[in-house]
Structure formats: C-alpha cells, structure tokens
C-alpha cells in the first residue's frame, strides 16, 4: 500500500501526475454503457447558485477530464460545497448548467445519481445497522447485481481495512472508521465519478494519510474509461497538492485553475525568510538596495524573489545587517492563494466567519 507523506515536496506524486496526463489522450475517444464518448467527466457552464440575497456561486465554468483527481480548494464559504452539491443533484442551480458523466444534473438527475458516488463531511450511515448491512442496503438501492455483490463488498471493505469489523454496528465506530466506511460505500456501486466533500476534515493525521492512500490506489486502478474520476473539496493546502489539477475558489468564483505545479510556478517568486539582529534596519535596507518590499511574518523578515537560492548568497555580502538564519522555500499553494486574493486562506476564513457573525447579528436585530 502506498504511503502518503504530508510534507510539501513529493516527487512521486508529480511523476504520477505526468503518467496520468500521458494516458489521457488515449482515453478520450473511449466510452461505453451510456457515457457519451469524448465528454468530460464533469462539465460546468455559467453555474450560479443564490440563496436569497446571498450569491454563493457566481458563475463558474469547469471541465474535469475522465480519470482525473480534481480538487476544489478554497476557504470555508467560498462556494465549494454549494458547487459540489449542485453536481451531485442535491441542489438545483439558479442559473447555468452542468453535466456529470455526460448527463445533465437537472434534466437527467437519476442518470447522474446512478453514475456518482458521494462521501460527505458529515456521516450518512445508519448507526444502528452493522457495517455490512449498511453496504448491502446501499447496494440494493443502487441495484448492484447480486452475482458480483459479495466479491465487491469484500473488496471495498478490505480496501478501507474494515472487513474484520463488518459485523459491528456502525455506532461503535470512530469518526475515522465511519469516514472509511463511507468511502467504501461510495465506491460499492462502481461510480464513474466519486465526489468527496472535505473527506479528511476532522480526522487524525494517520487516518488522513490512509484516506489519501486509498485515493491514490483508486487512481492506479483500472485504465482507459474505467478509471474513476475523483472530485473533492478541501481547504487543506497540503492535501490539494495530491490532486492532478485544482481550482482555487474564492467568493463564489474560480480564481485559478491548473496543476499544483503550474499554479505554484505562476507565483514566480520563492519565499525567503531571514532572521537578523535588527529586523527594521533589514527591511529598510532591502527596500533601498534591492527594491524589495518585505514584512515580518511569523517573527522573521519575509519577502518573495524569483530564484531565491541565487538571491540568498547576495544577502550575506550586501545587506548591512548581520543575518542569523535564512530559509528559502518554493511557493506553496498558500502563496498561490495569497498571490491571487491578497490574503491567506486562514485570513479569508476568519473574514468569512466575521461576515457570517455580522449577518446573523443583523438578522437578529432586524428580526427581533
């Protein structure tokens, strides 16, 4: 089983991404069993969703290729969940259209439902039934053929390491076990597109890593048109890096869409952090000598420059302040988000919470 490291650099994933991309063109022309040939796994045009006055999704366009692991990244309240709910036929779009596995999410709701698997943030299991009973119930609702059911059941339960616990009632399961069982259930009926809404939120690092290892296994399984497409939302930057492509959402819009590498490259600068004897003097000197605007982040003078490794040695010779420590890092997706929105994801989340609080307070006052 592949293990997943939770650090920022992971060459294995980059290689994997490249491999998938090479396969993709051969896959496009294939198709069978009601899935239209040459179509995207998910295609979205001008999608809008309003809740009264609030515009949660403000017109997005999106094409997700078959077999891709696609991430929707953004702070809470950016419109990710509304978008995914519309794609899953759980929410009607106010405007625009979307197809999933070649079927329209409004007009062909049932065909969409037949071809998707869903894993939500909140558990949707029946705690009073056993794990196996939950899966069998699901299989019946989706009409999984009897002949394959037993094998399939064992396969998905073994994948998430719950085969031994199949006869336990779900209410005895931990949060991580429940999530794993939901993933098994989401895969049971062999969906073409698997939607994962914040699949790792609220889980311990170990379980998060194991969930990613399942996703990576899925990505390796099958080939051609049989490879499952995975669409997920997350607000964990480090996890988004495992996706083949990501769309960064903010305030109901997609503000950037590309591979994690391309997005990071688009930032164009590396992040340099220095600790000095006199930070104020250092900032002034950087401004005057190099024309660089720096600020203090996490207790260190921080700024962005292209090719940071080449720039760092110059600092020691040319900066009039003694440097105690220096670090150069490649831009993370956090920096990408920052460069497109001007704020970090964490700040954006804090702001959206503030807005929410203000709105609630206003509603209370006017309604009171």
């Amino acid at each position, binding site marked *: 089983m592949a293990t997943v490291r939770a650090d920022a650099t992971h060459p294995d994933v980059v290689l994997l991404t490249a491999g998938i991309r090479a396969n993709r063109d051969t896959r496009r022309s294939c198709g069978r069993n009601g899935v239209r040939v040459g179509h995207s796994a998910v295609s979205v045009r001008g999608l809008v969703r309003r809740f009264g006055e609030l515009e949660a999704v403000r017109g997005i366009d999106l094409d997700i290729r078959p077999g891709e692991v696609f991430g929707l990244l953004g702070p809470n309240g950016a419109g990710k969940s509304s978008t995914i709910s519309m794609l899953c036929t759980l929410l009607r779009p106010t405007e625009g259209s979307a197809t999933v596995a070649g079927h329209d999410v409004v007009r062909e709701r049932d065909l969409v439902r037949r071809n998707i698997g869903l894993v939500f943030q909140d558990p949707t*299991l*029946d705690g009073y039934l056993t794990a196996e*009973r939950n899966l069998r119930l699901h299989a*019946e609702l989706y*009409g999984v*053929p009897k002949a*394959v059911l037993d094998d399939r059941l064992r396969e998905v339960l073994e994948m998430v390491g719950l085969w031994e616990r199949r006869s336990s009632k779900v209410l005895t399961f931990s949060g991580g076990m429940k999530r794993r069982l939901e993933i098994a259930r989401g895969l049971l009926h*062999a969906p073409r597109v698997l939607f994962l809404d914040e699949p790792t939120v609220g889980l311990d690092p170990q379980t998060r890593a194991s969930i990613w290892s399942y996703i990576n296994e899925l990505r390796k*399984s099958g080939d051609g048109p049989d490879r499952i497409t995975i669409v997920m939302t997350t607000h964990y930057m480090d996890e988004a890096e495992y996706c083949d492509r990501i769309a960064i959402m903010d305030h109901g819009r997609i503000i950037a869409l590309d591979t994690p590498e391309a997005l990071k490259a688009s930032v164009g600068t590396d992040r340099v952090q220095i600790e000095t004897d006199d930070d104020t003097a250092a900032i002034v000197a950087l401004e005057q000598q190099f024309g660089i605007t720096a600020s203090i982040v996490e207790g260190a003078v921080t700024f962005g420059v292209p090719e940071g490794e080449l720039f760092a040695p110059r600092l020691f010779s040319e900066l009039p302040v003694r440097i105690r420590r220096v670090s150069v890092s490649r831009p993370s997706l956090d920096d990408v988000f920052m460069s497109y929105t001007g704020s970090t994801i964490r700040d954006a989340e804090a702001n959206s919470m503030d807005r929410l609080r203000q709105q609630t307070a206003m509603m209370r006052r006017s309604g009171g």
Partner: protein
Amino acid sequence: MAVSAPAFRVPERSLGGEVRAIRVMWEREVIRFTSDRLRMITSLVQPLLFLFVLGTGLSTLTSLHTDGINLRTFLYPGILAMAVLLTAMFSAASIVWDREFGFLREMLVAPVRRGSLVLGKCLGGATVATFQGVVVICLAGLVGVPYDATLIVEALALLILLAFTLTAFGVMVAARVRQIQSYMALTQMLVLPLFFVSGGMFPVRGLPTWLLVVNRLDPLTYAVQPIRRVVFDHLGLSASVREQLDPGVTWNGWPVPTALCIAVIVVMGLVMTAIAIAQFSRED
C-alpha cells in the same frame, strides 16, 4: 491491494429496482425494531397502563352501568388502536432521526423514486405497529374477550389498515420537522387528543355537540368503530346492552356503515402517503 476496475455498471431504472427499494426500506424498519427490545416494551407500556390500571381502577365506579361488562373489556378495542397509534407515530420518528444524523441524505441521493422510499418506510412502520397490535390481541383472554378465529382475523386486518394510515400520518408530519425533540413534542400533542376524542374510552353517543363534532373529525374514530364492532360481535351481548355500549358512528343521524368507516381509513392513508411523497419529492 488496489481495488479492481469493476466489471459491472449500475442498471437502468426499472420496476424491479423500485420494488427492491421498497423492500430495503421495509427491511430496515423491521431490523431496527427487532434489534431494539426496549422500544418493543416501552411502546406497549402506555396502552397496557390504560387497559389494566385505569380500566381496573375505574371499573369500580362504572360496573353499575355496563350490565356486567367489565370496563376493561369495553376499553379493549380502543387499546388495540392506541397500541398501533403509538408505535406507528414512533416509527415515523426515525425519519426525523435520519435527517438529523444524515442517513436521510444517503436515501435522497439514491437513484430510486422518492415514492418508493416513502412507501417502504410506511409499510415498514405499519408492520412494526401491527406487530404491537398482535401482542395486544394475544392479551384478549385477560379482559374476557374470547380467542375466536374470525375475531382475530378481522381485527388483524383492521389493525393492518390502521397501522399503515397512522404511519403515513406520522411520516407526513415528520417530513417537515428538523429535530427529534420537536417531533416528540408534536407527537405528545397529537397522540393523546386523537385517542381521547376517538371514543376509544367511551360510547360515542349522547355527547355534547362540541365533542361530537371533534369526534367525527378524528380519523381514529373510524378505526375504533369497526374494531369495536368486531370485538363486540363475539361477546354475546343482548341487543340493548350492545346499543348502549356500541351505538356506532352517525353522520347527522345517519349511521355510518362499517365498510364506509374502513373506506375512510384507507382513503386517508392514501392521501397522507401522497402528501408525504410530495413533500419528500420537493426536497433538494
């Protein structure tokens, strides 16, 4: 061990698929009920309290007017209806429960008609409620009602209809309730008035006008009436006693035939099922 590419696809929508959906929903209700012994007992406590405690206690006051018929015997048909009423309403509560704990969403995204889900749910609740009715039927001997095959079959048939209608009523109510506490409070508010007004505890004649009117509007009236007919048919009562204790429901002086009472129950059950289905079909 990677998961293999599955060699099957989910089939197209079919009648068989809908029947399967009805069956799994039914099965789930029954499994949950049978695995919860406590619930089996608690939903019987109230009817049995009414029958044996209230019935026994009050019989000392009323024995003069009931011509030798024990008050417990008189109450028995009403208690049958009450056992079904409580269990049916309680079964429907699981919809609210499922909504709160997320399982409802798993069902709502399934590629089957919402109608099949609601129907399966109502049938499951009805099965469970009928089962409780059967337990009360088994107690017939304790209150002087004979174990007669016709009586049992007829009473059972009526209980099945009533159980379905009441579960549909519960599901219809539960469709819009978001919290289990609210549903429980609502049930408390509905169950006892429905039962008291239905005439389960008194003959529905010579009542003050206001009570007469609400009695005729109470759906449970039309269930209690036929059940009482069936039970009293087997007690060997004289015509005058029968007339006194089982006067029958009248609409503005016109005696409502038993068949019409049953029709009222069936039609109400279907209408409420339709409303429940419509409510869940609207849900996004």
